[in-house]
């Protein structure tokens, strides 16, 4: 199993990734996922979700989870 990571919109362009797969070793929280995928500090306004639900950066991440990072939403 792996952890599936997704980036959307301006954040996808900023970090240079759309989809990534991570080995779960060494990953405990959403912050750990961000740090393994990018070379920069997490911007203050980034929103994040685990398995399609909004979470905070300290939320636990497990093998098989889908983790997403995205900027403030602008639909409607």
């Amino acid at each position, binding site marked *: 199993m792996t952890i599936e990571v997704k980036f959307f919109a301006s954040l996808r362009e900023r970090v240079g990734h759309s989809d990534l797969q991570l080995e779960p070793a060494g990953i405990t929280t959403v912050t750990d996922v961000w740090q393994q995928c990018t070379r920069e500090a997490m911007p203050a306004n980034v929103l994040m979700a685990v398995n*399609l639900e*909004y979470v905070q950066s300290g939320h636990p991440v497990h093998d098989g989870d889908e983790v997403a990072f995205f900027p403030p*939403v602008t639909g*409607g």
Partner: protein
Amino acid sequence: MQIEITTDPISPWQRLDSYQQQMPGLVGKVGASAVFVGSMRDFNEDESISAMRLEHYPAMTLKYLQDLVNQTMQQWSLLDVLLLHRVGEVTPGDTIVLVAVWSAHRAEAFAACRHLMEELKSRAPFWKQETLREGGRRWVGKNTPG
């Protein structure tokens, strides 16, 4: 209840008409219908906009909207909800979103329609990227307050 995210153009009044014709069981029970239609402008923040691209996170968007509509229907005892949202390439004048609610009384219809729109705009994972008439593209950083 129907929720649809589509790349096809939305004709809001035709969609409303055909949807209402499929809810004969509610005739005589509905006392109030509230509708919001949001469409694309050709200006934003003092810039002229020629087109826009709407991106979303498909699985999360659908789940978020389903949960939101279910919770809203319970909170305001709604009889039915229709929610349509466009994604992909759009041009000025195109309908982006349609929210329609049906209830027994107007207070619930007005409040629930407003609630659905405000929650959608602040939490549903959609993003807009504008094409400027002068050239270039830019992501919309935040929605204007309701």
